[in-house]
């Protein structure tokens, strides 16, 4: 049986998500420059309690005209209330004056006198928003909220364009919405934003008061358990006061990075939250910066005495910005810190010992039966374990399910002489039980066999930083490894697990040594190690995780293939269970490739909606057809330089209805276009149901074209476009197989010559009235894809019409 895929673990918590479509109420307007991709930087608060309605603020850029907010999973819906641009410097100054006046009667008089003298023309108007009027009727807290919301870090002259626009959203969480992490996105005329975490919880929620430097006695007393929400601005430290009883075992679990994993323009490239706990006397009794390898801290506190305590949250370097949003769960609910074993064989019975806090009668350890069922759909190679106490669920920890024989480590095996005998292929569950512990295993191997040693620890959230060494019977080292990045993505920045691939020289005994590279150890330092012949496998990410596709149009995305255990073959990406009319073109990832751009096309009769699409990747491995679900992901940058592929929960597609329902564009012919190196090939695009006017000057451009290829000789027929692709003999390599991603556009100078009025300043609007434009773009909305790439070198303005379906090609010898 094919080993189930297990590497591409989403960083989310447990819970399979079934997506609910969200229908917008208004038609998308024609969009701006296609470079102005909408994006969101944060949502605040980043979660809420079941059976509540939460007012959420999202902030980002290029959000003008936002029509909807979509939330993944069932039971949570969102409504866009209002979009706001950032205040201008003059408006900010005016707001500050008015807030000062509201707070201080003398200032109010000064402002009134000044206003009386100011000529009409110079009065600065604040935007129409309930928070920006009637300051004299607002309470001090409300005034503080206004300052926090509209002035925020602008007070310190940090203007961050990428989080300057705000959208107010009302999120309704049903009573029976499953707790866990959701994803929230905004839908705008120019696209779908990246997703952001939105957490659904079962506990009461509280928000930080935004009082700058409050005295402890002025902090509101909060009841436990609770989820605290806050936002750290520069130099900010949020404080929360609560009462606790002696003997309570409190766990403070912070989500900061979990909400916004990477910041491109910050160093460290994320909000590095710290937590301190102070007792009634103001003494710090606990502090945490990280939780083992995770930069989001967890505090474990055995409450020493009845009394009041204060929790302080801030950034480790006292930085701050509006996107430094956090949630802290404070409770004495069960919290798992470790588990053993970290997995088992499919179909077997397996009970793990879990370690942690508040787990039950013995409080720190419990037994947890693991679901090892081998049925189809029982979950992939990694599943999630949750323990419950009194109906309350703990955090979830991952565990692996595999189909090889298993055994557990048995001490003592701390030396080569006392190495534990194991048989391969198989998985061993082991543990570096204390600092300096070393685990030795010995097995019989066949000469000539190339074997793989794959340690899974960090990928299953164990703190172990494995170091593996393989020796022969004489102790000669055949290979060793500390860190190995298998490309499975995620938000971890230390690929701490080890991997070895070694050809065994002869039949005989071999020894494997596993240690922790940092000489740490403890009961949580579990690992699994797979030893056996290579099991070639693969996984596919699709980036970005959200695309906007006008009806009948194609839009490109990138499929990133991760090959494991030496898999070199071809993979095909396909739609899975898609509604009728969807098309994926160019889905073939050739042998040896790891990244291919392909396109997805929406049906011509698609409506305005956000549709979840499932993609799967299929390959032939060892004669068997292997299917793997494609994981939607987004490429994020960390600290100016590092790039990560961060998995999302689903591949979300925002479809935009067409004014006219036209059959999709078709690439004539089957198979890849064969382009001779030094020569050219002709491609024909059929446009059924359309009639192009004579001399219609559509242009085509290769988007991120492969080296040595260019498009020339574009001509139109009444219902077709024909063009030639030329491969430069010197620059193009014979044997290159890939997809052509071609964008069609109009040269607006040409359009003017064709009789159009002045090149429209709002692209698309003037266009839609011209008969010529309609043919290629079924509605002016094709133009909405993006216009005006700006003045190129020749001062031309382009009107983008959309992409053609991906065209597979191969460069052949002439």
């Amino acid at each position, binding site marked *: 049986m094919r080993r189930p895929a297990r590497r591409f673990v989403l960083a989310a918590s447990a819970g399979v998500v079934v997506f609910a479509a969200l229908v917008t109420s208004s038609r998308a307007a024609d969009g701006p420059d296609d*470079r102005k*991709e909408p*994006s969101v*930087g944060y949502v605040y608060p980043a979660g809420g309690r079941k059976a509540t309605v939460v007012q959420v603020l999202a902030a*980002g*850029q290029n959000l003008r005209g936002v029509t909807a907010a979509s939330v993944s999973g069932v039971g949570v819906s969102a409504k866009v209330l209002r979009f706001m641009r950032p205040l201008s410097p003059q408006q900010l100054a005016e707001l500050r004056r008015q807030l000062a006046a509201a707070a201080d009667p003398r200032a109010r008089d000064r402002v009134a006198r000044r206003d009386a003298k100011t000529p009409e023309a110079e009065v600065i108007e604040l935007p129409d928003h309930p928070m920006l009027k009637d300051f004299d009727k607002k309470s001090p807290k409300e005034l503080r909220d206004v300052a926090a919301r509209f002035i925020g870090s602008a007070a310190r002259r940090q203007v*961050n*364009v*990428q989080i300057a626009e705000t959208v107010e959203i009302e999120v309704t969480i049903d009573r029976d919405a499953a707790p866990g992490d959701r994803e929230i996105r905004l839908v705008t005329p120019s696209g779908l934003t990246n997703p952001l975490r939105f957490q659904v919880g079962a506990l009461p929620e509280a928000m930080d008061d935004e009082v700058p430097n409050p005295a402890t006695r002025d902090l509101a007393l909060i009841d436990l358990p609770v989820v605290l929400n806050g936002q750290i601005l520069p130099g900010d430290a949020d404080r929360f006061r609560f009462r606790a009883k002696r003997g309570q075992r409190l766990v403070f679990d912070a989500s900061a990075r979990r909400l916004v994993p990477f910041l*491109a*323009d910050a160093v460290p490239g994320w909000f590095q939250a710290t937590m301190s706990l102070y007792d009634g006397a103001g003494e710090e009794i606990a502090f945490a910066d990280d939780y083992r390898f995770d930069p989001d801290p967890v505090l474990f506190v055995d409450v020493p005495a009845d009394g009041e305590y204060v929790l302080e949250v801030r950034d480790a370097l006292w930085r701050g910005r509006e996107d430094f949003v956090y949630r802290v769960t404070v409770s004495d609910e069960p919290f798992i810190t470790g588990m053993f074993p970290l997995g088992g064989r499919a179909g077997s019975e397996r009970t793990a010992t879990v370690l942690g806090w508040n787990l039950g009668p013995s409080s720190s350890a419990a037994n947890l039966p693991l679901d090892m069922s081998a049925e189809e759909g029982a979950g992939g190679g990694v599943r999630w374990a949750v323990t419950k106490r009194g109906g309350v669920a703990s955090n979830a920890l991952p565990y692996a399910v595999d189909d090889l024989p298993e055994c557990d480590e048995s001490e003592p095996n701390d030396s080569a002489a006392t190495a534990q005998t194991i048989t391969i292929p198989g998985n061993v569950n082991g543990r570096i039980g204390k600092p300096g512990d070393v685990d030795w295993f010995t097995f019989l191997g066949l000469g000539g066999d190339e074997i793989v040693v794959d340690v899974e620890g960090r990928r299953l959230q164990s703190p172990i930083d494995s170091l593996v060494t393989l020796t022969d019977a004489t102790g000669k080292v055949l290979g060793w490894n500390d860190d190995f990045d298998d490309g499975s993505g995620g938000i971890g920045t230390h690929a701490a697990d080890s991997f070895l691939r070694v050809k065994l020289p002869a039949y005989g005994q071999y020894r494997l040594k596993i240690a922790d590279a940092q000489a740490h150890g403890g009961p949580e330092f579990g690992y699994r190690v797979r030893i056996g012949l290579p099991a070639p496998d693969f996984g596919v990410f699709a980036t970005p995780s959200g695309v906007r596709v006008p009806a009948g149009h194609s839009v490109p995305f990138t499929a990133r293939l991760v090959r494991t255990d030496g898999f070199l073959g071809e993979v095909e990406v396909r739609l899975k269970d898609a509604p009728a009319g969807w098309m994926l073109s160019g889905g073939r990832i050739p042998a040896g490739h790891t990244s291919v751009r392909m396109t997805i096309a929406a049906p011509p009769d698609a409506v305005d909606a956000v549709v979840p699409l499932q993609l799967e990747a299929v390959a032939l491995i060892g004669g068997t057809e292997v299917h793997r679900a494609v994981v939607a992901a987004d490429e994020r940058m960390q600290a*100016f*330089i590092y790039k990560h592929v961060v998995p999302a929960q689903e591949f979300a597609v925002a479809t935009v209805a067409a004014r006219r329902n036209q059959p999709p564009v078709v690439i004539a012919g089957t198979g890849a276009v064969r382009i001779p190196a030094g020569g050219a090939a002709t491609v024909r695009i059929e446009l059924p149901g359309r009639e192009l006017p004579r001399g219609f000057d559509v242009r085509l451009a290769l988007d991120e074209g492969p080296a040595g290829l260019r498009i020339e000789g574009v001509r139109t027929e009444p219902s077709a476009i024909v063009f030639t692709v030329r491969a430069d003999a010197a620059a193009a390599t014979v044997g290159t197989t890939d997809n052509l991603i071609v964008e069609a556009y109009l040269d607006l100078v040409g359009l003017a010559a064709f009789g159009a009025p002045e090149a429209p300043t709002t692209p698309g609007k003037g266009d839609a009235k011209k008969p010529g434009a309609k043919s290629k773009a079924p509605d002016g909305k094709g133009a909405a894809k993006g216009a005006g*790439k*700006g*003045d*190129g*070198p*020749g001062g031309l303005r382009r009107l983008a019409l959309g992409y053609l379906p991906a065209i597979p090609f191969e460069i052949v010898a002439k």
Partner: protein
Amino acid sequence: MREDGAVSEPGLIRGITRRDALRRIAIVAAGVPMAATLGRVAWAGDAPTTPPTAKTARAKAVIEIWMAGGPCHIDTFDPKPEAGEDYAGPLGAPIQTNADGIRIGSLLPLLAKQADKYSIIRSMSHGNNGHETAAYITQTGRNPGERLVYPGFGAVVSLFKGGTNAYTGVIPPYVVLTAPLGRFSESGFLGPKYAPFATGGDPNQRRFAVEGIVAEGISDERQKDRRELLHKLDALGHALPKSPGLEALDRCEDKAYDMILGDAGRVFDLSEEKDPVRDSYGRTTFGQSCLVARRLVETGVPYVTIHVGGWDTHKQHFETMRRRLPDLDRGVSTLLQDLAGRGLLDSTIVWCGGEFGRTPKVLWEAPWNGGRGHHGRCFSTLVAGGGFKGGVVVGTTDKKGEDVADRPVHPRELHGAMYEKLGIDPDGPLPNQRGLDVTVTDPLEGGADAKRLPEIA
């Protein structure tokens, strides 16, 4: 009394505490700029000062225009309009220079007319994208991670040319306009003696307040009064018997006041220049710094760095280019013209660049919104004067400006070529007080026979 305890007696001491004022006088007297002299007299076992065998030396001075932060090579000296707008951005088509076949960025029209005077190395490369490390590599020619922290090119030139060699002026031999470069140690293991003298102040102000030499709002009379006040307060000096150390301090003080009150300090007085000249350099800090640099070189100062920052444009890149490139254009082109007009270009090397280039593919997405990141794989440096040929392009980058296509040039090769023009043997020993056996610069990969920048040398 101000809130911070400062004294606000108008006219005498403005906005500084009394303690500060005395400290400043003491520093001037001790001659921070004269630390070099102080050190040289006090230490025994001085470094050998006879320069190693020099090849034909043409240059006597160097003006370095350090574009801190890393300027984009594509927008300046290595344009790539054919790569499309995602690379070239919206700055417009590059312009032909007056050198055959060479074109530069559209925002440098004045430099385009001076292309016969300078050459462009388009294939500079060291592969590092960190400011500090890349600045270290570009300024020292060495790779990081070794046991030693090597001195920068300016410190080495001042070691050979300043002090007991050709240059004996009162102004320190290594001057930076106007703040120290900050990302690395200019003097490395040579020690603070060879650190540059940072003028501070702003040459575009009415009075260019040079640290320790020209004080804002203090007339020469007041300077003299201060000196007298200091002498009156120098109880220690009066109580102790004369010693070589104290005598050395006295000589420092004399030299320092020479600079302040004598002719030497007038090099910083830009009111000596006519307005049209000042205008032609540009009435900006950078433009006027270029003018100060010319004046310093005229008086014989061997090494001047003009530190012009703000090129680290991750965000607002094109807006910043539109603001800064015209300023750079005017300053550098006028400097070259002026040096040439005064017959100084042949004896003055001018080199202009930063620690790396910037990513050719524009980062349109959030949070950059049209920015460029760091790019150490290839970048451009401009070299002029000192006997170097003009109107030549050394090396090429690929179509998108992402990698060197031909003839990679490591900073050590540029340094080596400049050393040769200055009559310093790049393969000879680098004198130092630590007894270290090091050469002036690292050899090229080709070994002893490899020629340094033969295209323009």
